[in-house]
């Protein structure tokens, strides 16, 4: 039961991620010639979109907040990274910080960061997704003031709000973009000098292939074709893009997901899921 529930939500999330890219063609604001949007992904995901189920529990993306929120929170408050979550001793730890959540989807991470006190801009190329995120947040009286959702791509936002954010976050999205380098460059441009960029994604390894494609898609419930091995990104590639753009890479850390407990934890092994944190030179 629990297992199938988790699988279902994995499916849902991945579907929704797909949808996000699909609808880029339907909105005028994000031209389909945007270098980061992949037309093939768009066509593939055309058949399996589902915005509705984004917030259903259990939910891999929601539980991924167990690792990605402390990573962002502690880096932006100059705390030392630790494998176990050590709680801060005040509320609203991220008060005064501005963060952009690139590829925010239904807002699972954006809402969490707002609750911690940050001012968050969630952007997503999919209009439906942004509408869903807005609707979901509108029910919560604690989220009104510091949360804004925009239906734009990262390149669109760079044109108007370059160098505006203390934190730029792109989690579980880079494995779906076509031009990794220009996507990461956009992210870097959005950050203030000295600001942080956080990316979480899937490595391009044999293990990642086995888990994300063979286990999840061929043998599991995730639709075949959701992930493409060629699009998985090796950490060295991200590292070199950051270095080329005068960012210093502070951390590359592996992540592990336990299907049975629906929990994420940090690991030293980078071979499947990993997170990278870089700081833009000032």
């Amino acid at each position, binding site marked *: 039961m629990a297992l199938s529930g988790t699988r279902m939500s994995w499916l849902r999330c991945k579907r929704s991620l797909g949808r996000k890219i699909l609808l880029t063609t339907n909105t005028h604001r994000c031209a389909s010639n945007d270098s980061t949007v992949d037309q093939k992904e768009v066509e593939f995901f055309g058949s399996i979109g589902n915005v509705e*189920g984004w917030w*259903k529990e*259990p*939910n891999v993306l929601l539980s991924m907040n167990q690792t990605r929120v402390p990573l962002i929170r502690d880096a932006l408050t100059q705390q030392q990274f630790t494998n176990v*979550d050590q*709680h801060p*001793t005040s509320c609203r730890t991220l008060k005064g910080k501005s963060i952009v959540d690139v590829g925010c989807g239904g807002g699972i991470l954006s809402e*969490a960061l*707002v609750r911690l006190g940050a001012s968050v801009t969630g952007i997503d190329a999919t209009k439906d997704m942004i509408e869903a995120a807005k*609707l979901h947040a509108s029910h919560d009286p604690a989220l009104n003031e510091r949360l804004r959702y925009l239906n734009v791509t990262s390149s669109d936002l760079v044109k108007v709000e370059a160098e505006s954010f203390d934190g730029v976050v792109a989690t579980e999205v880079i494995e779906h973009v076509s031009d990794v380098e220009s996507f990461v460059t956009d992210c870097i441009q959005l950050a203030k000098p000295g600001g942080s960029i956080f990316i979480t994604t899937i490595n391009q390894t044999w293990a990642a292939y086995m888990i994300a494609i063979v286990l999840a898609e061929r043998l599991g419930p995730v639709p075949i074709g959701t992930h493409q091995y060629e699009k998985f990104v090796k950490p060295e590639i991200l590292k070199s893009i950051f270095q080329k753009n005068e960012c210093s890479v502070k951390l590359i850390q592996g992540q592990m997901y336990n299907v049975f407990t629906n929990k994420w934890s940090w690991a030293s092994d980078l071979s499947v899921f990993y997170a990278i944190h870089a700081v833009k030179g000032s």
Partner: protein
Amino acid sequence: MAMQTICQLHNRCLKSLATLVVCPARSLTCLAKKQRESCHHHRFQSRVRRFSQDSSSKPVTPFYDVVIVGGGMAGGALACALGSEVTLADHKILLLDHGKKPPKLTPESLGSEYSNRVCALNPQSKKLLSGIGAWSTIEKLRCKPFHRMQVWDACSDSLIAFNHPDLIQELAYIVENNVTISALTEQLEHLKQGNVDVWYETGLANLKVPVQGTIDQESWVTVTLKDMSKVKTRLLVGADGANSQVRKFGGFTMTRWTYDQSAVVATLHLAEQTENHVAWQRFLPTGPIAMLPLSETHSSLVWSTTHEEAKKLLQMSDDEFVEAVNHAFWDDSHHVASLDIVTQIFEDVLKVLQPDDSSSVRQLPPSVGGIQPGSRAKFPLGLGHAMHYVKPRIALIGDAAHRVHPLAGQGINLGFGDVSCLKDVLVKCANLGGDFGSISSLTDYETQRQRHVVPIMMVIDALKRLYSTTNPAAVLARSLGLQATNALKPLKDTIIDSASR
């Protein structure tokens, strides 16, 4: 819209609060609170709350991060624990109880009479209460530490005694329930200046939990109160005791059975003044009888027995009752003589294995000289365990989640354990920017607590059953068990340790 509601509120009953009209819509709860503070009369308060409902087309309902139903020891402690946690300072907490505000006790108002409802609070419970600032008040009011607990069997000579080796460290504290409640109420008074609201004489009438995980409708719990006003919350906590309405309306399944036993409680006067730092419990075939120290001259009685005997015990005169209590502690007629030789041999063997253990020295309980008039009462006993302690947006704590036999004095200690655990889980959730009602984080609370509570409940139930018989085999088994446990220090230390966790 919200502005319009506020204006209407203003026109109809809040003339004196004109200045607050400038509050944004979100502060409506604060407005309601100010109103409550400015007027103590409850009925007027609920009228104001109702006005906020029907004075406009779309009701504006007060919103809280946590609503706790039931201001008993568990609910009161949770409200204090959440309210005094710095990381939760911007979370709004509401505590509801259908009873009146408990009176503030002072050493003078306590006088020389004792309440007949007492609990043995273990060191973990003390730690929780110290953390929320209530323990110092309890100490100022009245509590009695004890250093040793002696448990023995009416059918054989076997006994077990628990104490820390030096006899200086306390095992637990006997505290009257109303003292604990008064200390918690005092803390709540301080916290009311911050993020905690407390509404007395406010009963729960119903609750609604919408489908979770949808985006087109909100997912908060709507709580309907007895006066038909409503509040909304991310997380509803049922701390409303063994007959929990939250559990019922929330559709939780409860496994329960009655023991065909009642507990008779009373405040006892000792025949002579003693140090009185030992808790005594003797297993009679009809149920355990316990004498818990209250002072050098008083002890509290908890006597679990059949309904018929309980009824008799309540009807007899004070003198007859005192005699019955003394008889229950001293009488030897249940002894199964043929077993004495076996248990004696076994004890000798254990002495060889573990010589020189002072704690196995048998002590004798003080004899009772009288009872505090009017202090006799009885309660039916039962066991209950909710299959789940959580559902999306609802959590159960204290007796609402689990009810145990008082023989091990664990009831509220388990409840306070729930409070610490739920607080930790919510703090963790807040630090991840999470939603308090999210089932993923509430499940952590359930898993941790059931892992602790279920084994304790099973042991208590097994003890209850094992000791409710005079069958020689059972008597022998339990005698040898008690003796061995008593003699084997490591085992006993584990028990002391886990009983105080």
